[in-house]
């Protein structure tokens, strides 16, 4: 598993502070909506990204505005790292009209075409073929855009993953697959979902398809950035698909309400030491990139941002029932 030192990093102090800020914003958004869910303000299902922030932050920092992304059921982190506004995201979680999907999508379906965010996805592995299509489009237009698809360790078992990477390899597509290995697919550990040969390196699934493979510490945002940058560069220059495994841990349940009976004793505490929101601020403070006071100020600003986002969501209107038909077809309408 690669650490940051394996990569040729070109991160300025500003970049590093930006990485920290993105992770901190994700954490704040997630722990806030976690509370609102517990208070029954947010309905439905909530899959939190807490613990995996370094992956979204690192990968998205390696992208340009012109690139394309697909996300998962655990998608809030990807959206924030991609620059989506937390107030409209919160509104979507609340099912409000001002949300990214006008309250029709909810937590699992946030999409924003302007940001190249083709959507979070309630269907495991559902986004991978779609990212493939974005990559085909980039290739046919002779652009140097890449398509990035985030998906979990569990998604590797779905046919959609294999069909997509077969296409990507055959057509040499600029597709970057980011495996977020958080040790579990729902409540089931890796060893019950994958054959022994894959357990130590999930990128083995990319081998027959000719994907360039990389395996990186997913709790280290700079390492993730380094791996993603290489993969993106390869895609931009006609080098074909890549598959990057980011090894991480989710600190909360699969969804809110999960009893988490399946964790081994001590496992959580061990991973907690690697929590990017403990280690990275410490590192940047140690290295003199940011002072403690500056970090505290950043945190305070982020807390205000997220509070205001929730307030915006609360105050927004629910969609009118008549809007249910809007957007169904390009010409509007639908059957009565």
């Amino acid at each position: 598993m690669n650490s940051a030192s394996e990569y040729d990093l070109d991160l300025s102090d500003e970049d590093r502070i930006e990485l920290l800020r993105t992770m901190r914003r994700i954490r704040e958004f997630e722990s806030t909506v976690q509370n609102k869910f517990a208070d029954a303000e947010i309905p439905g299902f909530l899959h939190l990204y807490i613990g995996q922030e370094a992956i979204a932050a690192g990968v998205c920092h390696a992208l340009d505005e012109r690139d394309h992304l697909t996300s998962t059921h655990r998608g809030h982190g990807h959206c924030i790292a991609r620059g989506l506004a937390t107030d409209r995201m919160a509104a979507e979680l609340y099912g409000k009209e001002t949300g990214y999907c006008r309250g029709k999508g909810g937590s699992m379906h946030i999409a924003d075409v302007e940001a190249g965010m083709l959507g979070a996805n309630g269907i495991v592995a559902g986004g991978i073929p779609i990212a493939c299509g974005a990559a085909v489009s980039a290739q046919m237009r002779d652009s140097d855009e890449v398509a990035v698809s985030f998906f979990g360790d569990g998604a590797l078992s779905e046919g959609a993953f294999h069909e997509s990477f077969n296409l990507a390899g055959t057509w040499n597509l600029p597709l970057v697959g980011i495996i977020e290995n958080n040790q579990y697919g729902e409540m089931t550990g890796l060893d019950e979902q994958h054959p022994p040969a894959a357990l130590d390196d999930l990128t083995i699934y990319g081998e027959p398809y000719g994907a360039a493979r990389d395996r990186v510490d997913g709790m280290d945002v700079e390492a993730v950035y380094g791996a993603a940058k290489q993969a993106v560069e390869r895609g931009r220059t006609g080098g074909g698909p890549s598959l990057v495994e980011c090894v991480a841990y989710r600190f909360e349940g699969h969804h809110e309400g999960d009893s988490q009976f399946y964790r081994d004793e001590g496992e959580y505490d061990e991973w907690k030491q690697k929590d990017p929101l403990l280690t990275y601020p410490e590192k940047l403070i140690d290295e003199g990139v940011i002072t403690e006071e500056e970090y505290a100020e950043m945190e305070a600003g982020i807390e205000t941002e997220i509070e205001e986002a929730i307030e915006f969501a609360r105050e927004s209107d629910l969609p009118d029932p008549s809007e249910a038909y809007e957007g169904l077809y390009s010409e509007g309408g639908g059957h009565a």
Partner: protein
Amino acid sequence: MSQTTDTQTDSLTLVQAVRDGLRGEMARDDSVIVMGEDVGENGGVFRATQGLIDEFGEERVVDTPLAESGIVGTAIGMAAYGMRPVPEIQFMGFVYPAFDQIVSHAARLRTRSRGAFTCPMVVRAPYGGGIRAPEHHSESKEAFFVHEPGLKVVIPSTPYDTKGLLAAAIRDPDPVVFLEPKLIYRAFREEVPADPYTVELGEAAVRREGSDVSVFTWGAMTRPTMEAAENLAGDVDVEVVDLRTLSPLDEETIVESFKKTGRAVVVHEAPKTGGLAGEVIATIQEEALLYQEAPIERVTGFDVPYPLYALEDYYLPEPARIEDGIRDVVEF
């Protein structure tokens, strides 16, 4: 477990009846295998398989990788070789990766092999709305499966029926899609015999007798329909027929009820267009046209992807909307 006698019953919710039905069939028949995502130690998203792994072990309660097509396809092969797999799909909206296996293969194995291979498999999935969950987690697409010859489609609405219909489905020699109304998984309890028993597939149940109008429904919509019927009691005498098995349809009971009342309403939560109401109405037109006294009304979901939270309450038929439908038909 305690000794059971013929008359012993337990007070069970619908989801407990699923579990009890599975347990009974697994105890009766070693070839019954439960398989799916997190059905083992976790006991399934809705705890329908909770405890089965302790009783029957990992060999018969199998946690699978996240691969619906693989799960159902594997079950087909197992069934062809004499096992009775009961794969679980976590939510009906996650069945589509397995749709090909169900429709292209499970449904046709017997015909293709001129009966040499059979497919005694039951695909279980919670379906339907009302739990404040988006799209795939709430939809009701039973019509997709009813449209495929070779499949049976069952939707229970009570704990008693759940256990009996599930047992019948598992013992049935052909593939059955068994859809469970998750909205009422824990809504109420009913006395359920402790011993295994079956409720015959293909038979509707008249839940309430009436002479003015027949209301046909199934699954989670049975309760609001009954409520609507009670609210109208004294004014309109409503017959409520719970179809229970959607394929094959119990045409006899449908037609008989309609001949008595001459008026009908069909209630389902699936979108209107292409929904099963159309099939029920066509059956009535073919078999009992001359008894018809009024246009038949459909009270259904709308032709949109299953909506989120706020719009959900408008989407799902509830007693007031069902009452309006009944009044329209009766006052025609």
